[in-house]
């Protein structure tokens, strides 16, 4: 427990000390939130209704997808994992602790958004706080899990950027953050259901913000929960200690199994 706490403490401080992580954890999400808060309600007044969940989801996407994978790949390439293995640091700590510390940073950032959004932008707060926290929790789990999985299976930093952007960019465009899901063409809507952001926005709207969900909100919660658990499980299974990948147990293509919950969810939760 003592070792876990020292590891957690170091990783948490790294999230502020490292300029790239500071940017992804705090500066980028909060800067974007202020920008959107000042501009978007002027252009599109209904945006104010979804400002809080949209900016919380954006913060999660930024800190996890853009913040978690690259340090994992860099550490593996620099022999840090080998050093950790020799000193008895388990794989599960290597995978979980960066995710947990990022989650803690996101709790702080989301808290700042929740406190300031009504004051600065007259944005409504959640009507059901318990459901808000539940959706927030499963979205954190899903995005942190996917990010850790990307860090585990990416061969190098360039591939990390590619995989992260494959999730991040469509999430911004189709995930319901900027444009409501119901305005999307049918095909784009189906494509959007592959993204955690779409499920999070759907669940926030239907369960926490007092709006209407475009498809089953509890279905979205289940999809996010299962995606998160599955991606952490796959990351643990596919984890390797060194850059030669000689210790990997399965093919990296197994990572695509993470899409199973969203694909099943498309048919189960209309």
């Amino acid at each position: 427990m003592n070792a876990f706490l020292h590891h957690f403490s170091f990783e948490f401080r790294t999230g502020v000390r490292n300029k790239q992580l500071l940017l992804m954890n705090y500066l980028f999400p909060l800067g974007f939130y202020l920008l959107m808060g000042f501009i978007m309600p002027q252009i599109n007044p209904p945006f104010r209704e979804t400002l809080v969940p949209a900016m919380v989801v954006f913060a999660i996407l930024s800190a996890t997808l853009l913040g978690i994978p690259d340090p994992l790949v860099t550490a593996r390439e620099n022999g840090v994992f080998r050093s950790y293995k020799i000193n008895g640091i388990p794989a599960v700590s290597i995978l979980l602790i960066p995710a947990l510390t990022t989650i803690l940073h996101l709790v702080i950032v989301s808290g700042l958004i929740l406190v300031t959004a009504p004051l600065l932008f007259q944005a409504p707060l959640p009507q059901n706080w318990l459901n808000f926290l539940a959706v927030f929790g499963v979205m954190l789990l899903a995005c942190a899990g996917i990010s850790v999985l990307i860090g585990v299976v990416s061969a190098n930093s360039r591939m990390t950027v590619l995989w992260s952007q494959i999730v991040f960019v469509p999430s911004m465009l189709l995930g319901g953050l900027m444009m409501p899901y119901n305005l999307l063409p049918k095909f784009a809507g189906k494509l959007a259901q592959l993204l955690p952001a779409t499920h999070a926005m759907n669940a926030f709207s239907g369960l926490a913000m007092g709006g209407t969900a475009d498809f089953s909100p509890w279905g979205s919660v289940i999809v996010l929960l299962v995606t998160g658990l599955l991606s952490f499980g796959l990351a643990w299974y596919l984890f390797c200690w060194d850059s030669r990948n000689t210790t990997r147990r399965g093919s990296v293509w197994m990572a695509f199994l993470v899409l199973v919950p969203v694909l099943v969810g498309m048919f189960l939760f209309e």
Partner: protein
Amino acid sequence: MSGTPIIEIRDFCKTYGKDVAVDGISFTVHTGEIFGLLGPNGAGKTTTLECLEGLRSPTSGTLQVAGLNPAAEFHKLRNVIGVQLQSAGLPESITPEEAMRFFCAYHGVAPRMELLEEMGLQDKRKAQFYDLSAGQQRRLVLALAIAHSPKILFLDEPTAGLDVASRVELHDRMRKLKSSGTTIILATHDMAEAADLSDRVGIMLRGKLVTIGTPLEITATGAGLTRISVRTQGGSLLSRDVIFPAVQKQMERDEYIIYYSVDIGSTVSAIIEYVNGHQDSLVDMRVERPSLEDRFLEITGAGDTR
């Protein structure tokens, strides 16, 4: 070398697909000795170390480290060994103080902050790893490797990239560890370092252990050519086809003529007699026995006789 065997390697092979990294080597390391593992790049040194450290499993053969099978009993092994990897192996933003707390916590021992002081890092306790100089980084990694008082220490190129002062400091530290009973396995390209520190040396080439012994034994078993460098006042030896007894090769460099002899006595006395007989006088004469580096180059076939 007397002493209890602490590392035993028997018929150890490691292959990566069709590539043979280590090809059936056997040797023993005794408690308290410094064992130098030498070889050119790709010889199999790092693979051998990684299998001994439990980072990889051997393809065949047996490895015993302090009575443990490294691959199967890794969780016990990690408290017995300390490792300084070739790469730094620490996160860039970690501070020496954090690293010491962090690694000691995972080993279940109290943090040994005094080691940071002993390694000259007291003023850098709160500096981030990437802000430390190469020498400070190496010293920190060494401090972490010995913080849990391991019986065996693996050092992979410990002084690579260090300045002279830092190398001397690290060598002193290694000698202190040896005197305290720690067994050290040293993989290095630096022949002078290996000859200076090691009780015994093993030279690997293309996955095989081609020779093993004390540095003295290894240098004595080569072609045995002693280098005699001579410079005279009048240059009577230069550009002459004089053949001295027992000389197998000779060459000129600057104002020196260099002879490689199998019998120092007869060659030296013949040179002196010749110089005196030609109304010349000696300015400088140096007799150098073959170094470990000469022997290494001879074994690996990588260099010409200088």
